[in-house]
């Protein structure tokens, strides 16, 4: 772990009012997750206890403490997507990737996460791969998306 890089990110955000979330976002954007070593560095920079930093990280679904697969696949589980066959899509995605929620495929390509609405409810069912949202996803389009992403990933 590159401690100097971590410290640089932390220093760049520490002066912001309410610096905790912007700092954690910046670290996760850069490293893909929040490494354990970041906790004490953040704690001393923001003058809070390490328990407090841990508490914040564990509270928010977005933050992860272990490296994810090369792509994160987030499938919407909320009502509008349910009304358009979302439950069947969830089952298909799990079967196709061979993992359950929060797990990573054996080849390290994909981590599967549930998400509760992507704001794409007029195009349900929806899912997100990396930063790209996809709408009106069928089993077939999912398979195509995933083979495309596997090549890129």
């Amino acid at each position, binding site marked *: 772990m590159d401690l100097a890089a971590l410290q640089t990110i932390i220093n760049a955000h520490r002066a912001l*009012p*309410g*610096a*905790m*979330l*912007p700092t*954690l*976002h910046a670290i996760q954007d850069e490293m893909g997750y929040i490494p354990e070593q970041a906790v004490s560095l953040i704690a001393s920079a*923001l003058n809070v206890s390490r328990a*407090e930093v841990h*508490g*914040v990280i564990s*509270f*928010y*679904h*977005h*933050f992860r403490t272990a490296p994810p697969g090369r792509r994160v696949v987030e499938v919407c589980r*909320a*009502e*509008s*997507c*349910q*009304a*358009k066959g979302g439950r069947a899509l969830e089952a298909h995605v799990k079967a196709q990737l061979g993992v359950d929620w929060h797990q990573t495929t054996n080849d390290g390509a994909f981590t599967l996460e549930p*998400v*509760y*609405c*992507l*704001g*794409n*409810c*007029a*195009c*349900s069912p*929806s899912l*997100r791969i990396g*930063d*790209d*949202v*996809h*709408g*009106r996803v069928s089993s077939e389009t999912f398979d195509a998306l995933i083979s495309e992403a596997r090549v890129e990933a």
Partner: protein
Amino acid sequence: MSVKIYVPQDSGALSLGAERVAKAIAAEAQKRSLEIKLVRNGSRGMFWLEPLVEVHTAQGRIAYGPVQARDVADLFEAGFLEGKPHALALGPTEQIPFLAKQERLTFARVGITDPISLDDYAAQGGWQGLKQAATLAPAAIVKEVTDSGLRGRGGAAFPTGIKWNTVLGAQAGQKYIVCNADEGDSGTFSDRMLMEGDPYCLIEGMAIAGLAVGATQGYIYVRSEYPHAFKTLNATIAKARDAGWLGPDVAGSGKAFELEARLGAGAYICGEETALLESLEGKRGVVRAKPPLPALKGLFGQPTVVNNVMTLASVPIILAKGAAFYRDYGQGRSLGTLPFQLAGNLKHAGLVEKAFGLTLRELLYDYGGGSASGRPLRAVQVGGPLGAYVPEADFDTPLDYEAFAAKGAMVGHGGVVAFDDTVDMAAQARYAMEFCAAESCGKCTPCRIGSTRGVEVIDRIIDGTERTKNVELLKSLCDTMLAGSLCAHGGMTPYPVLSALNHFPSDFGV
């Protein structure tokens, strides 16, 4: 003269391939040595037609959709640059009935302009409200908002002018405007569409709020599921500041207002205003007890206006055209317009801005076109995951805060999620409890523990284990959650659960 072609960069349109369409159009034009100007607008909100491509012609804007990249060469061949016929042609955009029948005040510019362009914004009536506010005394701005009848669009429908007046009257060295852009409700996307499609409107509304209450710093708390909206806000805040609409001298008023967008981190409860403030302060998003009201002790303990995106984005037109203009729309105590969001199993899902007072049935059938599956609609959840399921018998209820409350339902943020007759309402009730448990902030027992118990009890009802006894248990559990929860997360989860049970008992085997 180059032809203007519009391809939305709204993330809904992008989710359906708009980026590939834009690239294909640019490539095809180059191949044919045609000069075009590609404008990346917001979405018109007709998502069944997205990606919706528009061409500016002598007859105005002509729409084509839904367009895929593979259609592009064919469109050029058919002469779409002159608005000529094609299988995907939809005629003049503004005459498409779904759009023609709307009353777009808050969404006046969304889908029409380039969201990043300051020139477009100004040319389409932008900044008029802020210019007006810059000439008024703070109390006069607040009065205009109060007189407009505007109520909070985030869910609770609290009168905006009264909230602002409390913050105006508070004595403090620092006050804040916080925009709640957490939009966690399933079936809602109006905040996202506006932030991506007309961000200056929100920026203008926040600057007006700052002048009105004497706040010099604003934050927009955007959910992390909205990376495009966040990027668009960052780009436009910087441009607005350079142009003098934000910064040390807002619109020549001599007063300062700075603005910053912040990202949430995937916690539904951070949409609740006090949890949101905790989160902005860098803490766990745990709900605070009220009082004190955020208006008096909000962000960093200072007087704070917390308003939803739609609320703040409605303010510019109120200042520009006057309170009387705005309150002329709507009925009873639900004044103005609401951007409704049609989602779920509807043929024509999308954004419908209308004055309050139309019925749910009109929304579902006249705009939504009925179910997408062709099967009968059976249940409609209005107002997000904490909103009741409305049965067909109540579809004629007018969309009005009080009329919905009288039916034990809520309008909330205006999300409408339709289900056809394949829906299993016991599964929906179970999901409501499961969601409550997953997103509980953990502060109070009825919500944290009650929701987990609720899932177990519903499972037993579904299994047929001591059904009568467990139905009674579910009802009393709901009573406990209703009465004993600190906030509406635990306090309103019983609405979807009990409405499912009461209106659709056969799905529970009773």
